[in-house]
């Protein structure tokens, strides 16, 4: 374990770029063969999330997107989107509110913490995440309506999502029962 952590630190020290502004990237839906390079080359630093993304590659409940570095074709980030819903019960009646769920959002360790030239923009992860949010908003305004964007955050990523406009629910909810949400915190953004 110690060796793995040490290795991770060394990987982090290998800086590919000085600033996020220098990176040109592309978003696309991967084909099934693309997941082999994901498995061998991508590491978010959380192997259980990486394994989950790989193992769910045939799952039609959501669509995966790869964010690729145009310069070297490395996978910068992976995220998945799904239709979802928030439901509440009121005296036996159920009210449905449409939502779009970000199933996964993971950034490769080599691309984490690469700062933007403008400190207000944060880092590359924020830039990519905000591009994704903007895309989701466009979809919800033009294609399929949704009132909220929801996600389940791992505990150490909550502050990242808060900085990008997400709030914890703050009311009693029943979580999605998928295993990966057991320790995760449900968050939302009104759109």
């Amino acid at each position, binding site marked *: 374990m110690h060796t793995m952590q040490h290795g991770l630190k060394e990987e982090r020290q290998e800086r590919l770029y000085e600033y996020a*502004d220098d*990176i*040109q*990237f*592309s*978003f*696309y*839906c*991967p*084909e*099934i063969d693309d997941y082999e390079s994901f498995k061998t080359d991508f590491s978010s630093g959380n192997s259980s999330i990486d394994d989950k993304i790989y193992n769910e*590659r*045939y*799952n*039609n*409940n959501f*669509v995966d997107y790869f964010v690729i570095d*145009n310069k070297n074709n490395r996978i910068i980030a992976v995220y998945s989107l*799904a*239709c*979802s*819903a*928030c*439901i*509440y*019960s*009121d005296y036996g009646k159920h*009210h449905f*509110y449409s*939502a779009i*769920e970000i199933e996964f959002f993971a950034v490769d360790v080599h691309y984490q913490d690469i700062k933007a030239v403008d400190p207000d*923009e944060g880092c590359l992860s*924020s*830039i990519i995440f*905000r*591009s994704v*949010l*903007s*895309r989701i*908003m466009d979809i919800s305004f033009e294609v399929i309506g949704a*009132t909220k964007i*929801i996600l389940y955050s791992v505990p150490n990523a909550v502050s990242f999502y808060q900085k*990008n*406009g997400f709030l914890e*629910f703050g*009311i*009693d*909810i*029943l*979580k*999605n*029962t*998928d295993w990966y949400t057991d320790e995760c915190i*449900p968050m939302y*953004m*009104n*759109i």
Partner: protein
Amino acid sequence: MNETKVIIIKEEKAKEFFSQKPNYDMIKKIKRTANKYAHNATWIKGRTSRKAI
């Protein structure tokens, strides 16, 4: 059914929760960042995903 993506909210204050307005300042911020870096980002259309196979 184990993949059903629902959040069930039991409390009365759920009504208040669902009537919340978006944080337009934050949305503007997000849009501004996305637009600012739009020249860095390419959205590839027309690629066949596994869903279509």
